[in-house]
């Protein structure tokens, strides 16, 4: 029986302008086999895509200043800048409408409606402090075209697949993008213990060794 092995790959701090696929090649290229899946952390993908903004460079609108007040303090949209970022990404009125519906849904005991309606980026935005220095002073959006990134990884390395994942230490794993044929739920389960580690460990790439072999054996068992 093939054993799935998770290999975190340490890199330097990646910045806007870095190419995530070229970075994988530089740090892990020799270690990727045809049965492997290469996963990358979503915030690092977003940073390399330049999807960051500093609060000082933003001018929150009145609606952002008001609606952020309705978000619990721990949320990334609880500051006017986080809320404005969500509005910039998903549309001001979409976010506002989602907030109205979210409040009404809460009144009848249903949670999560705001994030369901406000769009994917509203849930992916990390407010300041959400990422390691030097990006701790930035708002970081979710990555653009995560499926495309995953597909590019697979094509470049000839591996079984690529994935863009959002995983944290609270046992929450979401797969934002996968190459064709991969099962996001399976990958999320494999990555649930956060092999990417915390930010200071600087391991934004995790190679899932023997994934294809193990998946095939599981399917035929």
């Amino acid at each position, binding site marked *: 029986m093939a054993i799935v092995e998770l290999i975190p790959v340490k890199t330097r701090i990646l910045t806007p302008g870095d190419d995530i696929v070229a970075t994988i090649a530089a740090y892990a290229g020799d270690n990727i086999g045809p049965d492997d899946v290469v996963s990358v952390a979503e915030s690092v993908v977003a940073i390399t895509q330049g999807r960051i903004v500093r*609060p*000082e460079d933003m001018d929150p609108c009145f609606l952002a200043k008001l609606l952020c*007040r309705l978000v619990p303090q721990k949320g990334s949209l609880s*500051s006017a*800048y986080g809320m404005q970022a969500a509005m910039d990404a998903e549309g001001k009125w979409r976010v506002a409408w989602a907030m109205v519906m979210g409040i009404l849904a809460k009144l009848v005991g249903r949670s999560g409606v705001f994030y369901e309606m406000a769009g994917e980026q509203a849930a992916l935005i990390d407010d*300041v*402090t959400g990422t390691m220095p030097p990006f*701790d*002073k930035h708002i970081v959006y979710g990555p653009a075209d995560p499926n495309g990134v995953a597909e590019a990884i697979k094509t470049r390395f000839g591996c079984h697949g690529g994935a863009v994942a959002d995983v944290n230490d609270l046992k929450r794993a979401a797969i934002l993008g996968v190459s064709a044929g991969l099962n996001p739920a399976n990958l999320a389960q494999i990555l649930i213990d956060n092999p990417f580690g915390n930010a200071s460990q600087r391991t934004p790439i995790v190679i899932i060794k023997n994934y294809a072999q193990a998946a095939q054996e599981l399917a035929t068992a």
Partner: protein
Amino acid sequence: MLFLFIAALAVAVALWLFVARQGDAAFEFLVDQRTDLNLEELTGDKAVFSTVVPFVNKGTQDGTIMDCFPRPLLPQEQYDAAAVSARLELETRRRDDGYFEALIVPKTTGNAVIVTVTFTAKRGDIRQALAAMVDMPVEIYFQVVARGKWYVSKQRVMMTAAEIAAALAPAGVRQ
């Protein structure tokens, strides 16, 4: 039509009251509760002192200190025997590069910064250079992001000549 107008007005007033009652973060560096200066290092031409300055978010909302740095004010017109520089670090997350990692401070809680001040003699021995030292303010600048617009504020720590002399004394300062 009138009903809609009154309903909208009622919602607006309710939101205004909610925001007003919610308040915001409010940071204060407790400069009068800082520790005495501690001599960290003394070499031929250099003396390094530190002091711990507590701070608190006394507001009603969590807040983020995005950046924080010290600025010593020692103009050459006032004192020309030593050059001064300063850096600070969070007491609970020490680092020596002068970078302040953005920090969420929950409401009614706090932390402390360690302010490190380095004097370098422009000529000769640092103990001689500091023998006639003057009182020196060190301003702590901090940038805050919370519910409202980001802002920069500052508070002043006064390092007196007497305090510097007292910190140097155990090392045998030459008056």
